[in-house]
């Protein structure tokens, strides 16, 4: 096992481009247990090398090991163990969107992401994959497998609408959490079945784990050929089939980021010479806000939005609030006057990062919808 990690480190040090690393990974046998190739997408508009090295602090050392393919050695000392991971940061097909990757154990990867990427907002933003994009990519991956492999969903972290409401009117009004449950499910179902059930039970995924089983004469192998984990905030890890998973999963998911970035670009009045842009609309497929309970739940959620100040202009029957993102120095108005959608109206400064943070907060904590630019023609319907 150590041998494989050492070989990977050596490859990172000597590689002259990312294709060298990809070629190395593609010829490897399945990784030993608990060893995964991890990828984390992140958005950053600043100079990357400075952003990463800024985090160097006591107990943490970051040194560059290859400047041709920006690769680093991350050393971190915890009370009882030393973590040494080599990783690389490569640009994706989308501008300002990068992929941090490494072959390592999950606890090591967690330490790396926690220290270098998490809680770095607004300098670094972990963009959110919407359910629709994720299921589309998984379907494409499944379609590419043909008869060679079968994809089975093994584990899900989900949010689900609660069937039975609380009897007590007071407790029902009290919290949004009364209406949705967070669940973890272990299963072994084909993708289509899981997606059908999700639709039926109004579920949306936070994390998905699936396995690919090789088939021989219509009989599956008992051991999976690959295990893959995806989390909504741009993280993928797998232990085999590098080429298949990167070509069909990563390459399918990257354009969804591009669409979001394009949508959120150039929205603030200040950067548009004070000519306002159209609002961003989060659309739902049914009249979600017809129920007062949902509107109140949304209001409570907005009140909880971290690191922000709010001014509530109207709570009922329509919702109108101003939100200022204290970390990013952006602000926007949130307006609900239609049971199907939330409007986000950019103000003087409204950045890509701030819009992504708020939309992903709604999607993750409240309900996923479709995000797009508001179109006046919808109002005639």
């Amino acid at each position, binding site marked *: 096992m150590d041998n494989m990690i050492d070989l990977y480190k050596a490859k990172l040090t000597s590689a002259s481009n990312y294709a060298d690393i990809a070629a190395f990974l593609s010829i490897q046998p399945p990784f030993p247990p608990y060893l995964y190739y991890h990828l984390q997408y992140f958005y950053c508009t600043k100079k990357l090398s400075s952003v990463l090295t800024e985090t160097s602090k006591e107990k943490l050392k970051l040194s560059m090991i290859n400047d041709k393919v920006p690769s680093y050695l991350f050393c971190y000392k915890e009370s009882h163990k030393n973590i040494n991971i080599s990783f690389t940061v490569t640009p994706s097909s989308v501008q300002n969107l990068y992929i941090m990757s490494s072959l390592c154990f999950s606890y090591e990867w967690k330490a790396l992401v926690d220290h270098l990427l998490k809680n770095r907002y607004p300098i670094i933003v972990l963009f959110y994959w919407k359910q629709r994009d994720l299921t589309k990519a998984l379907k494409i991956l499944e379609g590419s497998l043909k008869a060679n492999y079968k994809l089975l969903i093994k584990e899900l972290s989900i949010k689900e609408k609660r069937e039975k409401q609380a009897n007590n009117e007071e407790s029902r009004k009290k919290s949004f959490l009364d209406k949705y449950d967070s669940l973890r499910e272990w299963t072994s179902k084909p993708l289509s079945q899981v997606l059908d059930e999700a639709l039926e039970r109004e579920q949306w995924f936070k994390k998905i784990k699936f396995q690919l089983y090789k088939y021989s004469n219509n009989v599956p192998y008992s051991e999976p050929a690959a295990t893959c984990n995806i989390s909504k905030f741009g993280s993928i890890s797998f232990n085999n089939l590098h080429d298949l998973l990167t070509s069909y999963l990563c390459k399918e998911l990257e354009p969804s980021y591009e669409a979001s970035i394009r949508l959120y670009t150039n929205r603030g*009045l*200040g950067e548009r010479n*004070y*000519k*306002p842009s*159209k*609002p961003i609309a989060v659309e739902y497929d049914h*009249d979600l806000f017809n129920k007062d309970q949902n509107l109140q739940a949304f209001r409570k959620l907005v*009140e909880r939005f971290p*690191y*922000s*100040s*709010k*001014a*509530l*202009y*109207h709570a009922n*029957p*329509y919702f*109108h609030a*101003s*939100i*200022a*993102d*204290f970390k990013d*120095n*952006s*602000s926007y*108005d949130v*307006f609900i*006057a*239609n*049971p199907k959608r939330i*409007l986000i*109206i950019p*103000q*003087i*400064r409204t950045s890509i990062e701030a819009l992504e943070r708020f939309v992903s907060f709604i999607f993750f904590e409240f309900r996923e919808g479709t995000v797009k630019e*508001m179109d*006046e023609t919808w*109002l005639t319907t």
Partner: protein
Amino acid sequence: MANNLDEINKSCGNYLDTVHALLCFISLVCWERTPEPYFSFGRRMHTSPQNRIKKEEEVTPDAVIQLTNNIGLIIETKASLPENASFWRKEADQIIKYDDNLKGWWTTDEYITDYNVVVLIEITKSLEFNSYVLELQANGEITLGDAICGISFVRTQRLTEQIYFQPLWGRTKDSALSSKLKNGMPIPLEKVKVSYGNIKFYDHEPDVEHLIAVMWNDVFITKKDPSNFDPETKRYLISVEVNALAHELQRSFGCIAIRRTPADTQREQHREVEFPKISWVRRALDFLTTIGYAERRSENEYTVLYRLIRKDLIEHFASKRIKEKKRKPEEKEPTLFDES
């Protein structure tokens, strides 16, 4: 003036309702009309020597729309009226004052052939106000000209939130508008938010909490920078100049923001009204100074002691105002109704 939390919240809500009602009415009148009519949120106009209330005086109706070179609308909103009807005479006189050959239209000689004075009244007061005005007329105290028409408005929810306009009395002289209004006309609130989502003011001074909430959340935040953080007070020290701040508010949320085309911005500046006014901004900054959220450096310069406020901003500043009023009951509160 609103004096407790509920009243202040309601008053701030009413202010935005009036902004929305004006925008919806302008949309109702102007949509799908070519050439696009001129309109303005507030406009300096002049009464004639024959005016029944004030002769040859400057007036600023809430909105003015010029449909063609021959027909124009002078709009006055009454989103809220004093509870005591004895104070309504002033409102009635204001309407009669606008029923005049006003000067200040977008025509060569600044006069227009035909006009309507449109009184937009929130529905809960509309019938009562209507009766009051008719009674004044019956008593011979006033004469309502045929140019004056009343239109009630109400927020309704039919699938979407709308503002519904319905004729009360009189008739508009524009046939297209008359036919639109004949059976009542709903305008989706979203529709104006798409086009005018950033408009947060009109030519009336709002409660100080509304103005401060906009300044705090939308303007000061853009000036927050690690370089102006004071570790001792744990506040960001943001220098503001009153005129520059007023200008920023005007071009983002007020009088300049509502003008959209180059023609709009170049039109007769002397007739355009400014809002939020410099005096409103100064009063808001003085209030922040009183409650310890700003320091006055000179007549036009302040330092705002900016920090994250987790509580709802309107409630936060309203409770500060109430507390301050209790502390200094003898002092006159900064006036929120400027005549300028």
